[in-house]
Every structure is written in C-alpha cells, then in structure tokens.
C-alpha cells in the first residue's frame, strides 16, 4: 500500500495529490506537465514536498508534521528515469551491482536471466541499444531490492517494435518479482494493458483514480 498525500510547489507549478495505491501496478497517466515525473521524484526523495506525507508499505518516508524526511539512500526505492542514466564510467556488470543489497530477493544471475542481459555484462554502456539500456536500468533498480519500483515512461523513447519486446519484461517483473510499481506513461494502451490502478492527472491534481476500465470509460475530462 502506497499512500501519497502531499503538496509540492515549484516555480508557479503546484502539485497537490492524495491517493492510496494498493495495486501491483499503478499507472500515472496524463499530459506532459501534469506532474507525473515530479510525483516519482518526490517518492524517491529527490524533490521535497512542501507539506503532507508519503508512506510506502506502511513506512513513513516523508511526513512534515512529524519531521520525517528520509534521504533518498534510505528509502529503498528503485527509480528508473526516462533517460535511464546508466553510469557511463561503469560497465554493465558494475552498473547492476552498484546498488546490490545483501538479503535482496534477487541475485545477479536471476536478474540478468529474467531480463536476458547476461551477454551484455562485460560491455560498456555506450554501445548499448535503447532497449538494452532500458533493461540494464531496470536490472540495476531491481538489484537494490527496492520496496517499490518507479518507472518513468520506460517505453517512451523506443519504437513500436522495441516496445513490443520490452513490455513482456516489465510484465515479468510485475508477475515474478512482485514489487509494487508506479509507472508513468501517456500511452492509453500501455496503461490498459499494464495497470491495475490508474491515476489520471492534470495540472498537478488528480482528476480520476481507479481501475483502468473505470478511469478510461468516462468521457475525456
């Protein structure tokens, strides 16, 4: 269960959100500028809200009233930004191992097998294709044994063909790893296929929230 109840102001833009997310995959859906990425950054501890609270699986990682603001390195959140940001000075193996946490459910072998990236292990990150980078970044986040996975438009930068190839990996993570995910997209089909819960956002606030069928059934706001 993920409980987001906070307000965040940044330069004229205000994000004001209150939702409870209990599904395996929650999709944040909405036009650009709706505040989707900002929500992920706030959850990851990279952007402080101005008030409210954030709880991940019952653990308060941010709570203004009680002076709680866990730094990013203590939140156990796996964040894959839109441009994946693999560390350019480390090869694939060292990228994957960077955040390895002992006691994690997943070891290197499991993760690389699931994402089919064993052949890439000794390669530098520079020569990887978009889809390979995306999978390595997913693997790197999984290796840190996150309690929640935040994915920012993982399929936005890849073409239709690649999208068709990566989506099964994401479904595998959802079904085999069982880490709750917050997934940002502005693709309706992706949201329908992937989410059990959709939060429709616009201009920094929640327009609708619920199962995909309900959220997308209503007329466009």
């Amino acid at each position, binding site marked *: 269960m993920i409980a987001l109840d906070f307000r965040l102001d940044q330069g004229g833009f205000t994000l004001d959100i209150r939702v409870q997310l209990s599904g395996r995959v929650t999709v944040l859906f909405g036009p650009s500028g709706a505040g989707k990425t900002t929500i992920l950054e706030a959850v990851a501890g990279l952007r402080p809200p101005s008030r409210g609270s954030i709880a991940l699986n019952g653990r308060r990682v941010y709570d203004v009233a009680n002076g709680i603001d866990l730094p990013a*390195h203590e939140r156990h959140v*796996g964040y894959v930004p839109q441009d994946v940001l693999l560390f350019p000075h480390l090869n694939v193996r060292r990228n994957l191992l960077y955040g390895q946490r002992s006691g994690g459910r997943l070891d290197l072998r499991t993760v690389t097998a699931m994402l089919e990236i064993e052949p890439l292990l000794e390669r530098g990150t520079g020569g990887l294709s978009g889809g390979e980078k995306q999978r390595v970044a997913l693997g790197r986040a999984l290796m840190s044994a996150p309690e929640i996975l935040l994915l920012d438009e993982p399929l936005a930068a890849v073409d239709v063909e690649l999208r068709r190839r990566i989506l099964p990996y994401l479904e595998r993570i959802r079904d085999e790893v069982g880490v709750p995910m917050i997934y940002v997209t502005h693709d309706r089909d992706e949201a329908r296929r992937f989410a059990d819960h959709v939060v429709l956002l616009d201009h920094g606030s929640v327009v609708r929230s619920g199962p995909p069928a309900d959220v997308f059934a209503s007329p466009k706001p």
Partner: protein
Amino acid sequence: MSLWQITSFTIATAIAATLLMMPPGLLLAWLLARRRFRGRVLLETLVSLPLVMPPVATGLILLLLFAPRGPIGRVLSAFGVDVVFTWRAVVLAMTVMGLPLFVRTLRAGIEQVDRRYEAIAATLGARPIRVFFSITLPLALPALVAGAVLGFARAVGEFGATIMIAGSIPGATRTLPVAIYTYAETGRDSEAAILLAVSAAIAAGALWLANHVSSRAGLRA
C-alpha cells in the same frame, strides 16, 4: 648542492605538496560546487586569495603563522616540529600556492557532472560520501588530473612564498626556481640555463601526463 639534488628535491617536495592538496582540495571543491551554505563566498575568497595576492605576501603570512612564536608554529614547536626554514616550509608554501588552482579546476569539473547521476546513485542506497567517490569524482576525473597537474606545476614553480618562509639554504630548502634566481644573480649562467631546461622538461612532462590520463578517461566514458 648538485643540480641533480636541487631537481630531485624540488620534484619530491612538489609531489608531497600535490598529495597534501588533495584531501582539503577534494572537500573544498565539493563544498563549493555542490553545497549552498552561509560563508560560502568567504570560503571561496579565502581559497582563491593566494592566487591573486603577491606570493611574497602569502609567504609573509605563513611566516607569521608558522614562526616558532607564531600561533601555529608555537603548537608545532611543542611537539618538536620546526617548519620555518626547513623542507617542511617548502612543502607548506607549495601546498598553499597550488591549492587554489587544484580546487578551482576540480570544482569546475564537478559542476559539469550531471547531478542526476548522483541522484540515481542515492536511490540505489549510496550514502553521499560513496556517491562522491564512486560517481562524482570518477566522472570528474579529467578535472581531477588537470587540477593536480596545475597544482604540481605551480608547486614546482613556487618562488615568492618559498623564499619568505623557507629561504634559500643549499641542500636544505633550495628549490629549482630559487636556484635559478641565485645562479643568475651570481653570474653562474650555465647552471641557470641547465635548470631552466630542467624546469621546461618537468612542465612538459606534467602536461603530457595530464593529456594522456584525460584522453584515456575520455575513452572509457
């Protein structure tokens, strides 16, 4: 004191000074590049001061501080450590005069590093100190090398502060630039010319090393 002795003494003290610059230099470069705090401008000014002040004036300040009755010298004397007019004074003068170049160069390099790499490393569980040494510093490696070379070259060339606090004692504190000056003053032109050539060779060697390391780092990234 042979020319060889002068040369090796200068290189050894300059290497020691360059190594001494690193711990405070890394901390200062990181503070100035990445932190906003009260007194930042003051710190920035203090660090750069030896760069713009006459070296002789800096030397005089060091002399007042480290003289046996000076505020720092008194403490060191109590432990039986003499600084003024010893090789330690040479290293001290070189360190203080080289530090600004090291800090300014490294700071500019750190500012070039995309902070989002640091943010991702934090979400993977890395504490700030690990983020600095495993992400920030390797990505700023060319600047680290360039800063160290500039600091080293400045140390080798140090004259004004050295003459104030270390003097020109043959076999004890006489460095290359001081020796060149002394030889030229006393009409020993051939010795001065040889040391001139040695200075040029050291400078060229340092620059070659810097370019070599930087381009290798560039290839890896």
